[in-house]
């Protein structure tokens, strides 16, 4: 990115703790002193398990630096709510993408890649590639 701005990352989980922990883990492992804009959007607004479109929209707005936002989700309503918000057209910043990636591994790959100043397509590709890392 020529203007030096970083891609933003939003982590949507059914649990506030999971989203916040994965955000902290990914930022911790990214290191390098570069502050990637990462925002968790976990649980419902009332603090329960589930998905909140308000929390997602607020998180996306908070990490938007004008060069794209990558959204990673866990499952079920998290995926469906992000897709529904994207279909609305005006709920999320321009160049917001739902990234098809495993939640934890994908988040780390996305944050590390974003910290290098990579563009949204590269962040998305790095996160998606985490699916190909077999453990057994």
């Amino acid at each position, binding site marked *: 990115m020529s203007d030096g701005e970083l891609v933003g990352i939003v982590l949507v989980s059914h649990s506030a703790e999971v989203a916040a922990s994965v955000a902290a883990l990914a930022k911790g492992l990214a290191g390098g002193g570069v502050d990637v804009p990462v925002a968790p959007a976990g649980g*419902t607004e009332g603090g*329960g*398990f*589930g*998905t*909140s*479109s*308000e929390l997602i929209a607020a998180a996306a707005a908070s990490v938007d630096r004008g060069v794209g936002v990558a959204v990673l989700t866990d499952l*079920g*309503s998290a995926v*469906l*709510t992000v*897709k*529904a*918000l994207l*279909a*609305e057209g005006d709920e999320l910043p321009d160049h917001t993408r739902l990234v098809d990636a495993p939640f934890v591994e994908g988040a780390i790959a996305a944050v590390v890649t974003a910290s290098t100043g990579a563009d949204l397509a590269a962040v998305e590709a790095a996160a998606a590639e985490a699916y190909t890392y077999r453990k057994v």
Partner: protein
Amino acid sequence: MLDADFFRRWMTATAASVDREAERLTALDSPIGDADHGSNLQRGFHAVTAVLEKEAPATPGAVLVLAGRQLISTVGGASGPLYGTLLRRTGKALGEDAEVSEGQFADAFRAGVDAVMALGGAAPGDKTMIDALIPAVDALGDGFGAARAAAEEGALATTPLQARKGRASYLGERSIGHQDPGATSSSLLVAALAEANGE
């Protein structure tokens, strides 16, 4: 012809029906889901009726688009974006006419159901809301009463199926023998159409 008032009555009747049946929906969601379907839909449709009272949109399309938006933002579970998309897409397909025919509504509702299938990736027989909605759409040509009967029959017919979508799909064969809560709430939505029409 159906006007904005008819569609407001549809939403109010759905909210009342969800209130009456919330415990049953949650009971159906206990063995194969996370036991929140009734309370989630109650929260969503309460928000729908509240916003429709406040804003009173003037066209059928605007009523459904606004209702769908509310569901997406308030439900908190997968039924929010799914029902929200159903109503929003149906509303968008109705356009800006002040009144629509039953035939126009049938076409628009089919577009809404198609959008739900695209969003959730479910097909008929996967033990989801689609199993009540598709028969209802197919029967709409014969009137709202026929659609109600078809949706109820479709919901009952999910009992012997094995779930292939959503949380219930993780249960594999253990999902067999339970009526799908999403198909059940969909049959309530369709029944409320007939109710709004005085049937």
